[in-house]
């Protein structure tokens, strides 16, 4: 594996959008029968889950939960996950507390009476930085799920604005439809496509102005004033000694700690509250061409398997440089490439020269290469293969170009002639065509087609000869 990681950037396959990418980054759409790179797939979130308690949350519900878990919390100081600690409060302590509580009508007192040995109470604590909810004066809770994210101080204002703009957009749409109807009768206010607003000296009643005028007419100003931002004459006072006093660095929150809670932005450590843990999404990849699913993980968060996994590594023959070749400018050099078969049936491959358009008008300089002629067959990549008898069936291939043949692998000779005056890396390219046997359940009979895969191999710099 280490070898293939090393060669990741040496052998680049071409995506259907002609973007070069290592084989590991490519997907293969078996409906379009082309390779798809990271840019040629559409990514959506399949499900959300909590990384701590592994609770799965559907996409629709995650938005309501603000993409955070209800039960797990993050440390506001060091952002590691908080653990719930429980302590047993002896009944004597509760008895001491209960007279105080009798003043306020509390429904909890009967539940306390039921447990004679004492009740459990819970608090959150960080095992990493030792922060706990007790540090900031949050009282211990009767149940571990009693901890809640405090409401945002701007909640009211935000919901006010949201409802205002919802109404605004509804009215806006109504006005637009009205304008359309007017346009049908005589004038044309075609909406956004109308270019008259860009013309100098055009009629003053452009649709936008008209709309605004009508809005002002119909909307009571008081409605707008209700949500409009009010300016104040006296801004918030800075506490005395803010600039002159010595800062207590231990008590001031760092910027990172503040931004962990964007709604409250606690400036001091006493204002810290446990942060609900972020949910994590599982990706779902679709082919942009045909909208079929390329990658779909199992919904169970603790599983790392995939339901559908169409990666190019499972279909495309993998090309590796067998050993670093010695490259001399102007002379044909033998380069050994190994081609391995990823599937457990025989795959026949052939090589063609790259089309001139591939080099983007000479921007990418590729060394001329003579490719192995004819077609070759790769033996199946079967784990049990070496246990079978050596009764080898004859596989197709010109012996002249074959260096060696291994199980599911073929080493071929290429002749590359680096041009004189090559300064950078010596690269050469070819089209690897292989027959792809589709094994879809829908198509009952196996259909086979030839998939071309343009490949560019980077051989490194020229070998310096001593003379």
């Amino acid at each position: 594996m280490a070898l293939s990681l090393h060669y990741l950037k040496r052998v680049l396959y071409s995506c259907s959008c002609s973007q070069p990418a290592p084989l590991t980054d490519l997907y293969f759409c078996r409906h379009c029968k082309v390779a798809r790179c990271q840019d040629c797939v559409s990514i959506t979130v399949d499900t959300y889950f909590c990384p701590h308690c592994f609770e799965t949350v559907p996409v629709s519900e995650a938005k309501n939960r603000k993409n955070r878990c209800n039960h797990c919390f993050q440390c506001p100081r060091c952002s590691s996950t908080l653990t719930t600690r429980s302590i047993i409060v002896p009944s004597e302590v509760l008895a001491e507390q209960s007279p105080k509580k009798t003043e306020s009508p509390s429904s909890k007192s009967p539940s306390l009476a039921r447990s004679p040995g004492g009740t459990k109470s819970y608090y959150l604590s960080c095992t990493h930085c030792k922060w706990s909810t007790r540090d900031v004066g949050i009282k211990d809770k009767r149940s571990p799920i009693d901890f809640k994210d405090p409401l945002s101080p701007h909640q009211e204002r935000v919901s006010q604005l949201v409802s205002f703009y919802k109404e605004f957009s509804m009215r806006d749409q109504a006005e637009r439809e009205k304008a359309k109807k007017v346009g049908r009768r005589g004038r044309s206010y075609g909406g956004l496509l109308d270019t008259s607003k860009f013309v100098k000296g055009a009629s003053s009643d452009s649709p936008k102005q008209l709309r605004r005028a009508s809005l002002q007419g119909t909307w009571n100003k008081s409605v707008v004033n209700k949500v409009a931002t009010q300016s104040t004459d006296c801004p918030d006072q800075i506490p005395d000694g803010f600039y002159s006093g010595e800062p207590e660095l231990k008590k001031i929150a760092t910027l990172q700690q503040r931004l962990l809670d964007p709604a409250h932005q606690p400036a001091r450590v006493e204002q810290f509250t446990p942060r609900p843990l972020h949910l994590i999404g599982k990706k779902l990849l679709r082919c942009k061409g045909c909208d079929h699913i390329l990658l779909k993980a199992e919904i169970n968060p603790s599983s790392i398997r995939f339901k559908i996994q169409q990666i190019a590594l499972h279909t495309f023959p993998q090309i590796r440089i067998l050993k670093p070749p010695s490259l001399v400018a102007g002379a044909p050099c033998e380069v050994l490439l190994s081609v391995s078969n990823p599937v457990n049936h025989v795959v026949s491959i052939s090589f063609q020269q790259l089309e001139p358009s591939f080099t983007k008008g000479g921007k990418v300089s590729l060394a001329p290469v003579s490719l192995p002629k004819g077609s070759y067959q790769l033996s199946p990549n079967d784990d049990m293969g070496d246990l079978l008898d050596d009764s080898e069936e004859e596989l197709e291939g010109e012996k002249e170009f074959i260096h060696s043949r291994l199980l599911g692998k073929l080493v071929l000779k290429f002749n590359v002639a680096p041009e004189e005056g090559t300064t950078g890396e010596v690269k050469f390219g070819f089209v690897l065509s292989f027959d792809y046997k589709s094994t879809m359940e829908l198509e009952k009979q196996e259909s086979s087609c030839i998939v071309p895969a343009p490949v560019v191999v980077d051989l490194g710099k020229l070998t310096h000869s001593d003379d």
Partner: protein
Amino acid sequence: MSAFKTPNKKHSGDFKIAKGVVVCSEAELFGDITIGGGTVVHPSAHILAQGGPIVIGERNLIQEQVTIINSKREDGSTPTMVIGNGNIFEVGAHCGSLSVGDGNTFEAKSRVSERVKVTDRCSVGAGCSLDSQETLPTGTVLHGRECHRYTKKIPTQNNNQQQLDYLIKVLPNYHRLTKSTAPASTATPNT
């Protein structure tokens, strides 16, 4: 670590080890060491009184690969290193501090030099290193790669009594123990 090892024997010097203390013989002890009751010293811990005596209090937990060292001084002075009660030294901690109070936690791979004075209920986080001339106030917590520190208003109490009781019961079944070499006098820890 090998520099601290005594050439032949793992143990050399006077040890005053109180009753009910579990000191595994695989631990390396050197010099004048007094250990108070209920303390557990795991195998491969190093307690090295090279530059003066070491007095360890009660109910301390000293785990594997911990180094507690009173190092040799150039001026020839022999100060006594005093470690209080109920401290935890986690795996790989290094403590050179001459004064450690009660209920402190030295997390794994933490390092405290001899210039630091540790008071009570402090927590030195995993991998944190302290090398400045200072006194850690009660309830100081150090954590993270950059040794962020703060002081806890209500310091947490180490609750390792259960673990200590278990270790005192179990460890002698599988390890040879070191006995007190000093005359039979119950070692009284300096608290």
